[in-house]
Each structure stands twice: as structure tokens, then as C-alpha cells.
């Protein structure tokens, strides 16, 4: 039997309505509001770009999961798999260095045609910011603090921001054979400490003996700032020493923001994308097994679009946040006022007036069958009737009606 698809939605997508939608919308609004408080301006970009934009951007060699289509001239378009690249395109074409630093925020759906896990969504919502033209560690500290403040604003309790440093790891591994370094990086990306340790042990002789212990211990180096200070005490390659100093400076600024309790350093945190150049972050909440936000510094991306600028940013995953924050907003009630031929004129005008008082009103003829509806149905006659009603909603509307009438009279005399 042929499966009917006309009544299904594509796998990996979702419909939202009612309180679920209100919940999502509230979170997105609150997150964007926090970003706005920090001086970030919203941007909106097309849902698709030329595929070249993405392959030039952060997705070199990752074209397999693009949703592609063609425009009328046969050029290939792709639905955006993330927002950092479109923002980089905007910044490099619509701004110049006099505008630095540039603070931009977005709230957008993103698409992947293929995900490693079949239950992962192909359509998801990311709300995030990019801070372009500002150097570490002040800019990174601002990012991390905004992330923390946003979680507090929307009511995420019991969360932690893990902070790693891609540049630091690369610098430490730069002292060994590049092929070996790449194998170790790949084990870090896969979070496979067993493989990492095995590669180290098998190649002990080709690893600088002074750094061997530091390299072996790298994925286990996590905790508070002592992790960084004790690493900095070793004899490190110049770049690695600088990166340690950057982390220590970052920590000092985060302390000034009073957010140091919400962070943990984790040198094993090594993200999949090689466009990250410096500090990287991942956010976790107790209520969910997967990260709820991630980001980091990408100082070389803008270069690819013809503008040399340091940059950092992060994105929050809205669908995951809706799972973390279970409390949904209360639905705002709707009242239906029914009229008949005699009362229609006045009922429509009164309903209009009620809406200006921020009441949700449906006004429709008595003949529409509403017996199965959960909404409050009231006949206009009951409101107009002088006798006080036992029903609270009717009593309120009666009071409104009295004020309405007064206003009408007052309005008439003044004309």
C-alpha cells in the first residue's frame, strides 16, 4: 500500500501551536531581549544563500548535509545550516572597519538534510549573537557573560559553561608530527579518550618528552582556573603560553562580571569545526543530556569574505531550551460574544472597544454552533441585561459595558 504523505509533515520537522508555540515564542523573545540589552542589533537574512557562500564559509568539505535547490539560472542555492556564515557575508559587504566592533543578533531556523542521528531535527531554531571586530579576551568574556545572563533571564537553573581553547590545543600539538597531531585532534573531536591515550602511548618516542605528560593529560585537564595556571607553569610553545595567558585574563574579566561560578575550564573541549581559532564554549543544563548552546572565536572566517577581522559568537538551541524549561506560559482566555439581528450593530462596536482594552474577543452570530468549544460563550443580551449575573466573566463584561456606554455618551457630547 502506498503511504499517504499529504497528511504528514517531513521527518525531523515539527508543528507548533497553542501553548507550545507561546512557550517557544516567549523564550525566543526573552533571549533576543537580553541580547538587545547588551546593544546587539537584530539581523534577518534569506532562508537560503548561494551554496558558494557556505562552502567559502564554515562548511568547507561539509556539503553533504546541505539542502540544495536551483534558482532560475541554474545556480545552486542551499538552505542555511547555521547563521554565522550569512552574518559574516553581511558584515563583510555592508560594514567596514570604522564600524568595529559590530554587534549583531539573530533568531532563525536552520536546516540540515542529513544528521548523524536520525532523530535529530532537520529543521531547528538557533538564537545567537556575533561580535565582530573585537579582540579576545574581553569580547569572549562578554559572550560568555551574555550566555549566562540569558540563561538566568529565561529561567535555566543548574547549568554550566565549559570553556576550551582550540588555539591552545593546536599550539601544544604543534610540537609533534602534523599527521600524529591530526589523529589526536580527531580523537578529541570524537571525545574518545581511549583512542587518544592509545595513540600517545604508541607514539611515545616521537613526542617531545618534556610535553609528553601534558599531551597525554590534555583531555583530562578540566576544572577551575588552577587547570590553566598549572599548565602555564610548564615549558610550552610560545603560542600555547599566550593562549594560557588569554585564558587567565578571561577568567579575571569573568570574575569582574561575577559569573565565575557558572564556568568550568575543559581543555579536552575541541569542537568539530576547524574555523574556530581560540576560546570555545559549550553550555549544558542539568535537565538535558545534550548541549543547549555553543560557540567560540573564529578570527579567520571574515578573511574569506575579504575582510580581516577577529570575531566571536554563540548560538542557543531553542528546541532544547524548551525542553529544559518545562513551565509553559498560561494561555490567555478568549471570550466569544454572540449577537442576533437586533444586537449586531452594538455588539460589534462593543467588541471592538473591548479589544482596545487588551481583551481577546470573538464576536459572531448566535447561529454558529459552539457547544463543543472550550471557550467562554456569552450572548450579548446577557451583558446588556441590567440584572447582575452569577457568572464572573459576564459581571466583568457588564462593568465594561457601563464604562463603554459612558465613554460613548461623553464622546457624543464632545462632538
Amino acid at each position, binding site marked *: 500500500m502506498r503511504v499517504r504523505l499529504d497528511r504528514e509533515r517531513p521527518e525531523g520537522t515539527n508543528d507548533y501551536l497553542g501553548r507550545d508555540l507561546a512557550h517557544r515564542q516567549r523564550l525566543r523573545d526573552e533571549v533576543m531581549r537580553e541580547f538587545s540589552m547588551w546593544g546587539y542589533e537584530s539581523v534577518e537574512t534569506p532562508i537560503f544563500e548561494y551554496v558558494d557562500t557556505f562552502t567559502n564559509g564554515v562548511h568547507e568539505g561539509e556539503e553533504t548535509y546541505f539542502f540544495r535547490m536551483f534558482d532560475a539560472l541554474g545556480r545552486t542555492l542551499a538552505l542555511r545550516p547555521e547563521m554565522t556564515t550569512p552574518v559574516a557575508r553581511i558584515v563583510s559587504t555592508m560594514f567596514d572597519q570604522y564600524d568595529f566592533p559590530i554587534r549583531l543578533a539573530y533568531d532563525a531556523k536552520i536546516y540540515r538534510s542529513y544528521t548523524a542521528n536520525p532523530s535529530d531535527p532537520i529543521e531547528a531554531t538557533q538564537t545567537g549573537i556575533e561580535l565582530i571586530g573585537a579582540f579576545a579576551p574581553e569580547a569572549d568574556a562578554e559572550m560568555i557573560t551574555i550566555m549566562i545572563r540569558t540563561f538566568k533571564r529565561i529561567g535555566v537553573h543548574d547549568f554550566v559553561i565549559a570553556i576550551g581553547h582550540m588555539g591552545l590545543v593546536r599550539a601544544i600539538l604543534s610540537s609533534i608530527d602534523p599527521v600524529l597531531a591530526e589523529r589526536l585532534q580527531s580523537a578529541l573531536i570524537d571525545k574518545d579518550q*581511549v583512542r587518544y591515550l592509545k595513540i600517545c602511548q604508541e607514539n611515545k618516542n616521537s613526542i617531545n618528552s618534556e610535553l609528553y605528560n601534558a599531551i597525554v593529560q590534555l583531555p583530562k585537564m578540566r576544572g577551575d582556573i588552577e587547570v590553566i595556571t598549572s599548565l602555564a607553569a610548564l615549558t610550552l610553545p610560545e603560542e600555547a603560553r599566550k593562549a594560557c595567558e588569554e585564558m587567565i585574563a578571561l577568567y579575571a574579566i569573568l570574575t569582574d562580571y561575577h559569573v565565575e561560578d557558572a564556568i568550568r575550564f575543559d581543555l579536552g573541549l575541541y569542537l568539530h569545526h576547524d574555523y574556530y581559532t581560540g576560546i570555545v564554549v559549550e553550555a549544558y543544563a542539568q535537565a538535558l543530556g545534550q548541549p543547549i548552546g555553543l560557540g567560540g572565536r573564529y578570527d579567520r572566517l571574515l578573511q574569506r569574505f575579504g575582510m580581516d577581522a577577529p570575531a566571536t559568537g554563540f548560538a542557543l538551541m531553542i528546541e532544547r531550551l524548551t525542553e529544559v524549561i518545562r513551565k509553559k506560559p498560561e494561555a490567555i482566555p478568549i471570550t466569544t460574544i454572540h449577537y442576533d439581528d437586533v444586537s449586531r450593530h452594538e455588539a460589534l462596536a462593543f467588541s471592538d472597544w473591548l479589544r482596545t482594552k487588551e481583551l481577546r474577543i470573538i464576536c459572531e452570530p448566535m447561529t454558529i454552533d459552539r457547544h463543543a468549544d472550550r471557550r467562554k460563550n456569552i450572548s450579548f443580551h446577557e451583558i446588556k441585561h441590567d440584572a447582575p449575573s452569577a457568572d464572573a466573566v459576564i459581571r466583568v463584561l457588564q462593568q465594561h459595558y457601563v464604562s463603554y456606554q459612558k465613554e460613548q455618551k461623553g464622546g457624543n457630547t464632545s462632538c
Partner: protein
Amino acid sequence: MLTIAVAKGRIFEATIALLEQAGVGSQSLLLDSRKLILDDQEHQIRYLLAKPVDVPTYVTHGAADLGIVGKDVLHEANTDIHELVDLGFGYCQMVVAAPQGTVLSEVSQVATKYPRYARDFFRRQGRQIEIIDLHGSVELAPLIGLSDCIVDIVETGRTLKENGLVIIEKLAEISTRLVANRRSFQLKGKQIDDFVNRLHDATKGGSSH
């Protein structure tokens, strides 16, 4: 409190012995019950006793903070979790086996419980061969002409021998691993590090004696 999903089956008894030896689990509690959830008050650990293939799922979703499971199962699940320690037991090998005289370059069908291992191996050989998914007694397939060969784990090789199959290629060494959920790895970092260190010490102690 840490929640640990433990794979029942092949590696279960060795797992419990190690937990007892590391001083983080109680052998009597874990062996004497048919319950699926066990709370070890003394060590502040909750155990979930699960089918091996389900352990990576529990850990990925964060229903368990940690999991103890074979690398064979882990590799097939291909999921995004931390692989922390090689626990040094439950050793076996992932192999290609076939009736005597089979030439690897001529096989065109493989029966297996491990499609990812099989696909990856033959792809590395430059071959995209037909994979027949089975869930048990894989050795049967070549005997009845369902496939030319199998990809399966081998501990002693006895089952292969009894069914007239020989190993024609070794794909990977398998052992038992400790894995962690990504959220728990960060939010329960200290507890997990302590647990890892104790298991680490116990595995070292075990192998040196």
C-alpha cells in the same frame, strides 16, 4: 548520585567484579536481583541494568550519567558521548569469517549484527557489498548460502570452528569501555573524575597482579 547503565550479558559478571574491586559497587547487591534499577545507597550509585545495545542510548540521552559497555556495541551505536576508559576486560576481536577457501576479494554478501563495522571495512577495501542484517547465530548464514561471509565478534573461536568457518581478516580489537553523557561529563565532572580514577586504579591493579 551517579546513574550508571551496565550492559547485561557477555561482560556483566566481569563488570560487577571490577566495580566491587574498585570499591564503587557491591557484588552481592548487583547479582542477587532481578530488578532493573538498583540503588546502591552505600556508594551513592544507581545502576540501570540494560540490554547492551541500549546502554549507548541511555547515556546519549542522559538517562544515565555513565555506561559500561563493549566497544563493539559502542561503535555500532555511533553516538556522541565521551569514551573515557578502556576497562581492560571482555576482550574479543571483530573479524571477517567465512568457509575455508573463501577469497576476501570475491565475497559479495556479508551477514552481520555489526553493519557499521562491515560497511566501513569493505568500503576501505574499495567495495560496497551487500549487507544482510541478522540479530543472532550469524554463523548460520554462510552455511545455508545466505551470505559468503560474516562479520562478527570472536572470543575463543570455538563457535566458528564448530560451524566450519575460519577467520579471514581481523578488523578491530574489542574491549569494555566506560562512557559518559556530555551533560554529566560537565555538570558532574568531579564525581565522574573520582569514579574514573577509582576504576583506573582497579584495572591497573588487576593487570599487574
